[in-house]
């Protein structure tokens, strides 16, 4: 299921799962409804656009991220949904470059995880 999710991200979308019993919406990587416990889902494709819910600017990175430092790791609220998704947003060195609520979008996926950019 994760590969399906990654494929959607690569085309700038978010694959969500909607519970067929109670309509609760989840990110794709869940197997039972968090709200009612039911197992049936139908796919729902969301646009990978949204706003910055919160973020940090990393200056002491984990291995593999040295050459991108500093960069932002961001939690994005997805447009027209209550869901959030997080990922890597490069080229940010100061909070003034990324005010809370800024419009951002998913642009791809690679060894830095889900890639985000400012809209």
């Amino acid at each position, binding site marked *: 299921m994760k590969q399906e999710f990654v494929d959607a991200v690569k085309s700038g979308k978010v694959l969500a799962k909607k519970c067929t019993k109670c309509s609760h919406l989840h990110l794709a990587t869940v197997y039972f409804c968090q709200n009612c416990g039911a197992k049936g889902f139908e796919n729902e494709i969301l646009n990978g656009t949204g706003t910055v819910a*919160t973020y*940090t600017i*990393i200056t*002491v*990175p984990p291995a593999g991220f040295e050459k991108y430092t500093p*960069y932002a*790791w961001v939690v994005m609220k997805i447009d027209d949904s*209550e869901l959030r*998704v997080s990922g890597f947003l490069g080229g940010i060195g100061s909070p003034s470059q990324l005010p809370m609520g800024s419009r951002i979008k998913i642009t791809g996926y690679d060894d830095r995880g*889900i890639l985000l950019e400012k809209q």
Partner: protein
Amino acid sequence: MEKVCVLGAGSTKYGKLDDSITDITIQASIGAIESAGIDPKEIQAGYISNVFGVADKQVHLGPVIMSNLGIPEKPSLSIESACGSGSVSFREAFANVAAGFYDAVLVAGTEKVTHTGTEWTTTYFSYCSDFFYEGGAGASFPGLFASMARAYLNEFKATEEDLAAVAVKNHENGLLNPKAHLRKKISIDDVMKSAVVASPLKLYDCCPFSDGASAVILCSEKFAKEHSKNYVNVIGSGRGGSPATLQGRDHMTTIPSTKLAAQAAYKMAGITAKDIDFAEVHDCFTIAEVVDTEDLGFFEKGAGVQAVREGRTARNGDIPINPSGGLKAKGHPIGATGVGQVVEVFEQLTGKAGERTVKDAKIGLTHNFGATGASCAVHIFQGV
């Protein structure tokens, strides 16, 4: 359910230690055994918590520790729950003694990582997150708590200086703790001028990577009464969980598992947050202590920073938080921390805390979680 007691407690110094992970775990365990005044043969089981034994070439620590204590035939459980390993392990030991399976058990937590360096620890600690969304996208642990901090500063009337005040307070407490990793007085200015690790958190907002081991002897009330007059009752035990990711939470300024664990522990103890005299809480970062004290019910949401400003959480305040110095100054050997908190509460409630004694304390609380609070345990203790 049997009543459960802490009969003895021991700890190594926290900091950069030379001895192996096995040696420090044995040292803390012997401390607990001697403090309890028991023979190792009286221990019926061991609960050994650790996260990165692999860094010191020793996993499956349970049988190694039991063998070194001369009781290789006794069962043990080696437990990992990230930074919450110690309290989760304590809870399993508590449940088994409460259920009557054992009369007396050893609970030991341990960690040895400082020799690996900052890059190794930053990288491996990030594996404690939901790696696909967080560590794998470049989020370090300071980064995850920094994201909570930014959300908090944005939502409530709080400043980076307010967060710095938590570090200043815990360093003051750490100065009085001979086993603390960082024994150095610092000012708000020192925190504000320290290097940014993950904005808005700076170096002095972060706890250090520490080595260290802590251990306690947990037993039935009957066993305790036969061995000592100076023990501590465990009157509440609660656990809870949170979504493993920050993105999975509706609010990023609260940790759901803390609330669940606290509610369960208060209910078992038949008390409320108002009855707690002092607490050892999980302050891996300054923002965490603020969020914890709100989620534990000591203050309203958003009022935690005001309480720090007014000195209410200082050692002589109305609800002292982290008199040991906390993870921030005492140090954070991640597999040991949850057990180390119990060691502090034991010492406070049995008159062994020396200079850092909280005046007239009768009831203490420990709060410890794994990662960004995905796993959490809260325990409440009362002196006899």
